[in-house]
């Protein structure tokens, strides 16, 4: 069950704390800011994404890869032309990951791959709410889903609350899908990151399911945003 709290950091423009059944992240968006000279683009805004790991110094190469994936999608979604010579900064701190405990990585070769995917999936959904909270102009909405394919089942990983079960699944492949949502309907694929052994039938099945999950999740997010807008614009009534 996804749990969302928005505007948790009053010092920044937009923020969101998101917890799924097995992970927890906090993200913040600040912008448009005055960037350093090297970030200054004449026709559009620069986007800086920083993801901090749940433990240890960071960002390590693991987080840098996550940052790049997140930045590419945000580049497509944020109306960068509106803020030329400015910077939009997205910060994320991973607070809980199912693989924090000692020894939890061992025993399943997929865990090494699964761990950054779970973190990134939460970062995507959380940064969307943060962006809305910060009132940065967006071209469209997006929802991220992480699905695992085993021998006979398709699993929505964000809903697995039993950590031992999560660590011991025998996945054939893992798919991280970010779908654009326009007029309440999932449309374009913004990011598709698949790992493991799969064929085109699997992928079609995954995309079909991702659409359904996106539709459902977006309804949930929409209700939250509706609440937020009615709270924020209370003076309008």
């Amino acid at each position, binding site marked *: 069950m996804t749990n969302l709290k928005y505007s*948790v950091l009053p010092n920044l423009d937009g923020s969101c704390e998101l917890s799924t059944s097995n992970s927890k992240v*906090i993200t913040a968006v*600040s912008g448009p800011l005055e960037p350093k000279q090297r970030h200054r683009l004449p026709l559009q805004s620069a986007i800086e994404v920083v993801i*901090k790991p*749940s*433990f240890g110094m960071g960002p390590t190469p693991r987080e840098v890869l996550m940052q790049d994936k997140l930045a590419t999608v945000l580049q497509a979604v944020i109306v960068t032309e509106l803020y030329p010579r400015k910077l939009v900064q997205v910060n994320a701190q991973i607070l*809980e990951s199912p693989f*924090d405990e*000692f020894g939890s990585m061992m025993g399943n070769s997929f865990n090494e791959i699964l761990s950054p995917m779970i973190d990134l999936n939460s970062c995507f959904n959380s940064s969307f709410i943060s962006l809305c909270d910060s009132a940065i102009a967006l071209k469209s909405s997006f929802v991220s889903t992480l699905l695992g394919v085993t021998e006979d089942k398709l699993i929505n990983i964000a809903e697995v609350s039993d950590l031992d079960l999560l660590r011991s699944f025998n996945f054939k492949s893992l798919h991280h899908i970010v779908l654009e949502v326009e007029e309440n309907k999932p449309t374009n694929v913004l990011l598709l990151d698949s790992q493991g052994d799969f064929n085109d039938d699997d992928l079609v099945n995954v995309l079909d399911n991702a659409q359904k999950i996106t539709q459902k999740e977006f309804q949930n997010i929409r209700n939250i945003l509706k609440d937020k807008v009615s709270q924020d614009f209370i003076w309008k009534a």
Partner: protein
Amino acid sequence: MAKDLVITNTERQFILDLLANSQRLDGRKSLLQQRDLNINITPNRYGDIYLELKRDDGSIATRLHCKVTAEIVKPKDQRPFEGTFYINCEFNGLAGLNFENYKVGNNSDEFYYGRLIESMILRSNALDLEQLCIVAGLKVWNIRVDVHVLEFDGGFLELASIGCMTALLHYRRPDVTVRNEKVTIHSFDEKEGVKLGVLHIPIALQFNLFPLKEAAEIIKTNTSSENNNELVVLDCTLKEDLLKDGEFIIALNKNREIVQLNKPGGIPISASKIVEFSHMALPIIEETTNKILKAIDIDEKKRNKYAHLLSAENDRYVE
């Protein structure tokens, strides 16, 4: 680009005048009043603590997340029987726009305070490192505490030291069996985790000093008879922190033992003040320690709800 927090001259004068009248910008009525401390322990994890300092109006001033993680490493050559301990804390863009990402020593204080807490815990033997040894010279536990700053309005040192100690007290590492140099690590299902050897609970407290006169004037005119040249303020907010001129850090435990003293520069204080500060700190430390132990106790009871049913201990009746 991160922009430093700037305080205008009028605001500076206003805050200092308020302090001179025993008033605080956030509505506190005394210089020695601390903000409310909240300790939240994540229910399904070990050593995962959220700490909050709350203002009088209920909003969160400072929020930290402390997390303990353990890994098995090779010990240092000079200390083959000891595990290692490390505190990692850095401010990043989440704490506010005045903190820049990727910049080492943003606040310049965070590393300093991090090392201060580390030495407070290590040199006073608050964490027993020898208990962390698995195979001498080959395998020891490395315990790391990560302090994430999620919201910042002063009070970092106190909160971080409380957070580190709570997290260390709460954490359990997996149990290990060694047979013929073969090491087996048991998961929490197999064997219950082992608590870390926390021998006492030192907590740091920072007295912030604000001058009533110019520093040069104090040194020139100071005689033993007058020693009220400074205002002493506890639990400064970020703005007050920028205006202070000197600090006095003391780390104590509940057993009334001084663990660490630090007076790095700033306005001079008379030597007798040190005793006075220690006496002022004692009840505060005692209260905080009880708060920590209570939070851990409540969590323990929640986790162990069937303990009283499973216990083979007889009821004892005391006359």
